[in-house]
């Protein structure tokens, strides 16, 4: 099955999974965001970051440059690398929007957690295609 062989996998254990969900529930009905740190395809730590969007945090998130630097520093301190970012979609499905696509960076893993009525629901991970044309869904697993 060559198609599935190409799917990128991100390993997120139950502690990390819980941290992301809890952050999304805490900031509901606003979007939360944070950095994913680890090595290879395994997330070993998250860094919750402030949502600094000026366009209404119910539907948007933004990590400002200074927090991005902080996330890279943190990654170096922990002896890992910055693997990507997570954010929540309050009362919306855990699928990337056109806005997500327009603002995406290559190689990063983008975790989206849906939060429905304040309760976290589906969680997915996405990677930008090299030609920036769309996202490819990856596989999340907790080994």
């Amino acid at each position, binding site marked *: 099955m060559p198609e599935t062989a190409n799917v990128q996998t991100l390993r997120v254990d139950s502690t990390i999974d819980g941290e992301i969900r809890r952050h999304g529930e805490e900031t509901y009905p606003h*979007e939360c*965001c944070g950095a994913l740190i680890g090595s290879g395809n395994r997330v070993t730590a998250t860094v919750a970051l402030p949502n600094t*969007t*000026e*366009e*209404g945090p*119910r*539907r*948007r*998130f*933004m*990590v*400002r*440059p200074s927090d*991005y*630097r902080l996330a*890279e520093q943190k*990654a170096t301190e922990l002896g890992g*690398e*910055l693997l990507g*970012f997570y*954010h929540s*979609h*309050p*009362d*919306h499905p855990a699928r*990337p*929007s*056109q*806005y*997500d696509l327009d*603002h*995406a*960076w*290559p*190689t*990063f893993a*983008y975790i989206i957690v849906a939060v429905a009525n304040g309760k976290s629901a589906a969680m997915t991970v996405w990677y930008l295609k090299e*030609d*920036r044309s769309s996202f490819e869904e990856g596989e999340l697993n907790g080994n």
Partner: protein
Amino acid sequence: MATKILIPTPLRPFTDKKDAVEANGTTVGELLADLTTKHSGLKAHLYNQEGKLRSFVNIYVNDEDIRYLQKEQTPITSGDTVSIIPSVAGGAPTAEAPATLPELTKDEIKRYSRHLILPEVGMEGQRKLKAAKVLCIGAGGLGSPVAMYLAAAGVGTIGIVDFDVVDFSNLQRQILHSTNDVGKPKLQSAKEKLVAMNPHVNVVTHNAALSSENALELFEPYDIIVDGTDNFPTRYLVNDACVILGKPNAYGSIFRFEGQASVFATKEGPCYRCLYPEPPPPGLVPSCAEGGVLGVLPGIIGCIQANETLKLIIGAGEPLIGRFLIFDALRMKFRELKLRKDPDCPVCGTHPTVTKLIDYEQFCGVQSSTQEAPMSGSTTEISAVDLKKRLDRGDVLKIVDVREPHEYEINRIKGSTLIPLGDIPKRYVELDPSDEIVVQCKVGGRSAKAADFLRSKGFTKVLNLTGGILDWIDKVDPSQPKY
């Protein structure tokens, strides 16, 4: 000269996994051009299709964002370090319909069939219209076509704010109201027409004068506000309240033969204050009551407002955001000006100074009506009744009518002399400063200016007729027509 460029994690696959590379150039622009030549994979991620740096790509020279330096022209000197730093952004889809759009009944499907077969509207768009809540400020010239077309199109909830009563002088353009509505509250007349036109819409009437005290509360339940006001204080109030609440303002205004329309206060777009930070001096721009308006003009501009409102709801086409449409009815020409969001805008800029509603009458330099009311025994004003008494008593008063000749043709005070306001500066010498002079216009605004001017030229016995010719007709001479 080689300069060090720090590369962020997601771009390292394009720089052979290096976190720092070197490139040459004397400005940031040259440096990045050299960088993307050496590492061509970077180009698509740093620049958009128009060749501009993507908005979420931040370039720092040492610790300064080049946006605050000279952007891509920022010079590079030896020893500088340049960093590419991502802003990470994203969010949930906004155009997506809420999960619980109302269903259409069989009757509604039949009624809206010409919408339903447009792919841009369809069932989903029509259900969005049914779910939408739009507030019309005013049920007058602009409010009439706006409310009628929104009701016909099936906008589920239409709110109307007004406190006025239908007058004969409204009927030339305010097509919501008919001859037999004269004397009725406009809200009542409007609701009757709209419900008769489409019983499926919910018409909510707000019998109030919009003010800083009630605007936020009135706007809160609505998705879009349609500004059909005819004065500057309310226009600024509507704009600021829309920005504060994050609700789009479908704007329109009319005067004589010219109309304007735009969509203000959307998340990405400019607001009315980006265009006009300050109101014009009071009196500079006359109202429609003073200057007149072609009856069909509010029909044209109101239809544009309704059109833009429907587009915002269904999410189709290119909205009139960041574009200012000017319509000239005499030449039958539309012009379009580009508008940008002003980062220094006092309301919607990056550091707003106006964060709550203010006193807009004061902001626009307009005195409130209570201050305008004549004080008894005033030495600068005279009421219609007192003027009549004095004339009957045989007092010699020189009455100067400062309106335009075409207004003078409609009605006048017997024995008055016509000198239009604009001619006063060159014709005041015709007047005798020893005479007692009464200046008069339609409602008292222009004549107050004429009185001020005459006093500045040394006239000491100048009285302004309060309420103008209209008050004179109401209280003294009802035989004359009003306009």
